[in-house]
């Protein structure tokens, strides 16, 4: 290759075509859809229309049946509890999909633990641990050594260094100003997240609360880098918590069926409206939803952020021009190599 390395590297970026694709068909279809939609929406109830019966019904039962001041929360966790249950498990399904899609084919991060399980199985089959010929052993040792070296490459935590140390700020974390500010801001934000859920005056309670908690995790990720957050937001920590939230939701539904003959019916005694325990099972559901949303979205986001560079191997050298040639590549075993110049 006579080209400078940078040009060659740029050629290996994923191919993206920015041309319009059949613009006439696209504009015609989108135009037809907008025409149909506009005809539809101008007939929708306007700002002067009466509330639908279902909304008025929810307003009427919120206080007597649920002891809940916040009608939106009553609908989310009371009247439409079964529907919210379905949506929660849709969220869980989406999280499972993201985890499945983003996990590495090789067990570098031990996200699922295939390599640990494989090692145990290997030890059972072959207690001597010899396994394979010399070449294979050599390759395995080299791989392990490489993994260790990768681990040693980790820079020390900038916050452990004494102040005034003359060293470049690490790219993983942001400057000391941002780190201090993030530390201060994180505490009231976490409190705000739980407050939104606990007092139940917020529409939805656990949904916005969980989103705020995820926001705190992302703030800390931005300020401190993945190493600092990775210690807390670990799959082995977050996933059990998420499933615990899911189990609480199932339990709330089943207890309602058991005691009140209907899924998600309120089986708790009603507290004074406006207090923390107000709303019967609404608060329980809302708290479980806080856990579910915060951890579920955290798993999805951090799985996406932590995706490895599993580029398909470059078979013919100039993969940028020919997408089909790589179509049958293994997709897994050339970690980061393809992207190097």
């Amino acid at each position, binding site marked *: 290759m006579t080209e400078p390395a940078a040009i060659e590297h740029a050629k290996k970026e994923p191919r993206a075509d920015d041309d319009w694709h059949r613009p006439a068909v696209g504009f015609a279809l989108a135009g037809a859809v907008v025409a149909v939609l506009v005809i539809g929406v101008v007939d929708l109830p306007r*700002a002067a229309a009466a*509330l639908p019966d279902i909304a008025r019904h929810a307003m009427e039962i919120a206080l007597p049946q649920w002891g809940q001041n916040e009608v939106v929360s009553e609908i989310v966790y009371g009247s439409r509890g079964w529907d919210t249950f379905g949506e929660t498990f849709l969220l869980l399904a989406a999280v499972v999909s993201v985890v499945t899609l983003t996990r590495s084919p090789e067990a570098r991060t031990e996200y699922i633990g295939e390599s640990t399980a494989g090692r145990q199985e290997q030890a059972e089959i072959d207690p001597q641990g010899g396994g394979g010929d010399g070449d294979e052993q050599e390759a395995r040792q080299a791989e392990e050594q490489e993994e260790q070296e990768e681990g040693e490459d980790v820079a020390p935590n900038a916050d452990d260094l004494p102040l005034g140390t003359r060293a470049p700020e690490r790219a993983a974390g942001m400057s000391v100003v941002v780190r201090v500010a993030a530390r201060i801001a994180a505490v009231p934000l976490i409190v705000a997240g739980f407050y939104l859920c606990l007092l139940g005056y917020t529409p939805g309670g656990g949904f916005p609360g969980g989103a705020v908690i995820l926001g705190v995790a992302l703030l800390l990720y931005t300020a401190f880098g993945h190493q600092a957050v990775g210690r807390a937001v670990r799959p082995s920590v977050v996933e059990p918590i998420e499933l615990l939230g899911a189990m609480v939701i199932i339990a709330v539904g089943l207890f309602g069926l058991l005691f009140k003959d209907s899924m998600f019916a309120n089986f708790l005694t009603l507290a004074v409206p406006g207090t923390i325990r107000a709303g019967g099972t609404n608060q329980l559901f809302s708290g479980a939803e806080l856990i579910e949303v915060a951890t579920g979205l955290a798993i999805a986001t951090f799985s996406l952020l932590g995706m490895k560079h599993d580029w*398909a191997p470059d078979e013919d050298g100039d993969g940028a021009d020919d997408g089909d040639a790589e179509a049958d590549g293994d997709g897994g075993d050339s970690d980061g190599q393809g992207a190097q110049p």
Partner: protein
Amino acid sequence: VIVANYVAAAVLFSLGLLTVLTRRNLIKIILGLSLMESSTYLLMVSMAYRRGSTAPVLTTPPDGKSSSDLVHGNVADPVLQNFCLTAIVIGVAVTAVFLSAAVRVAQHYRSVDAADMTALKG
């Protein structure tokens, strides 16, 4: 008038659809899907609006009224607010699925052009 919001939602939805139809870059297709998603939030929140209404909250009734007055009073539609609330969280999760699939596709095909994804072509 609130109909302008409805029409804006319809136009946003169609813009998203146009992106999905005429662009082959996977990231842009995902942006288009997100736009379609957002347009439904706008439509639902706009439909929940009632002229001169208050929030559907049964605390602190205004001077001289009781909570039962609020129950029959002029409030925004709580059911549609609830739809919007849950839809946002699901939308984030679904976008995460799209994006992780797009990253995997880009790594596998070395392309984010939908025309290059030919493995399932009959």
